[in-house]
């Protein structure tokens, strides 16, 4: 973003919040319908200072990270398996797709019954949601190597494993990162949905509790935190992608070798 565009973007945000604050006051909207930005800010401050928000945040954060990690690792391993062994694709992949068509939200209550109200059930729900995008992108990525590059490796008497390690895997990385990026955002949704279904702690649990108490400003304060979490995780994956798949620099103006 150029400085001018950045300025414009920030101004837009300020204008939006200003209008929101003014509108709530001008139309005398009840705080249990739409809280003012100022009251959200106060709720955020109180929640952070009292330690209530951080305590629930760490629970959700842990579920997101563990569920994401588990889903990504399984997605990656299955993706590599399916990508390398066509037999596995024909025999197993239809069932994976069938599983994917079942809404995870619908099976969340079952998982909570099986694994209880603690973190385990949330981690599993999150993992099942994060699994598929990583799997699908790994499979596509492993087939994305140009035939020229594979021909070259064959001409050099490379083994299947060498072709995988030296060409197919690096070529798949940019796809895998797309999958990871989608998965990390879905992971946050997975954890919150899991907590909605049944939990003793976590930001999703806190949302329900505050909703029940008609503490709308408090709910909005949690939304701010969830949004920040999502942006933070997405940025992390993007930074990691730029470092690992450095040759896919979007602008292509990277002067390398320095």
């Amino acid at each position: 973003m150029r400085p001018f565009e950045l300025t414009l973007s920030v101004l837009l945000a300020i204008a939006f919040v200003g209008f929101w604050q003014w509108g709530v006051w001008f139309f005398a909207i009840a705080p249990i319908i739409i809280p003012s930005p100022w009251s959200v800010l106060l709720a955020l401050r109180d929640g952070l200072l009292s330690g209530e928000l951080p305590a629930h945040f760490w629970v959700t954060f842990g579920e997101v990270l563990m569920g994401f990690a588990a889903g990504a690792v399984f997605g990656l391993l299955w993706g590599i398996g399916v990508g390398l062994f066509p037999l596995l694709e024909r025999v197993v992949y239809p069932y994976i797709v069938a599983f994917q068509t079942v809404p995870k939200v619908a099976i969340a209550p079952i998982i909570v019954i099986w694994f209880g109200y603690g973190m385990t059930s949330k981690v599993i729900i999150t993992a099942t949601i994060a699994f598929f995008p990583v799997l699908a992108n790994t499979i596509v990525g492993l087939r994305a190597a140009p035939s020229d590059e594979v021909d070259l490796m064959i001409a050099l008497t490379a083994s299947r494993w060498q072709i995988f390690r030296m060409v197919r895997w690096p070529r798949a990385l940019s796809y895998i990162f797309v999958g990871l990026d989608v998965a990390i955002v879905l992971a946050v949704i997975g954890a919150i949905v899991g907590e909605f279904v049944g939990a003793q702690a976590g930001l999703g649990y806190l949302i329900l509790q505050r909703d029940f108490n008609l503490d709308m400003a408090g709910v909005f304060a949690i939304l701010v935190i969830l949004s920040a979490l999502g942006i933070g995780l997405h940025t992390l994956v993007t930074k990691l992608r730029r470092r690992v798949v450095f040759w896919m620099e979007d602008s292509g103006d990277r002067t390398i070798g320095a």
Partner: protein
Amino acid sequence: MNGDAGNVASAIKPPLIQAARLNKTYPSRDGAPIVALKDVDFEIGAGEFVTVVGPSGCGKSTLLKVMAGILGGASGSLTLGGVPVTGPSRNVGVVFQAPVLLPWRTVLENVLLPVDVQRRGRPAHLARAQELLRMVGLEGFEGRYPAALSGGMQQRVGIVRALINDPDLLLMDEPFGALDAMTREQMNLDLLRIWNANAKTVMLVTHSIPEAVFLADRVIVMSPRPGRITDIVTVGLPRPRRLPVMATPEFGALTDRIRGHFGALGALDA
């Protein structure tokens, strides 16, 4: 079919490559097989520079892939140094139409790819890699990534990579087809210089008749459907060749002779 005059060079040196009644067919979707190569016979002597010219679909790239051992399923006999070609050989260097450089490897790492694949040990080949890069004017670019190089420079890296193992045979599949005309002429001159310095046997596929004549000791002329050899033209032009040779009547006579084959076929489209 195999012109007598074409065997002059191979009569002096022992033939490195012998192809006899080489046939290759592809299955097609509608059932009727496509004959890509039909009774292809030729010999190439060690150290010879042979070009293969023909219109699109004449099987020249197929021929090259069969010779590189990338493409199997051809019938007939094909030997390299007296040994039948059954698969890829470390004694053969291949240059493709695109440079096919791996973008996550530096220029030097790309050049050393064959060394890595064949586990020959980088240190032992570092000096040769640098010397070859210097020869093609890429000294100082060792640490760059391919994206920072022009198309011509990338193709030079591709050629150096094919030479790193010091192969007996260099196979080139329209290596300069994607380059602009001026870069292409420069690359032709560079290639002749490399060939002179390394005494390799080169087989280069092209669809440019002037390029085929300019580079070659002999030009194999192919026609499409089915892909077969219609003529083998010996180019007696003195070496080393410079670009002005293209303006001589001898050069014109050779290109006219080759062009004549395509005109008769109605295949002259470019």
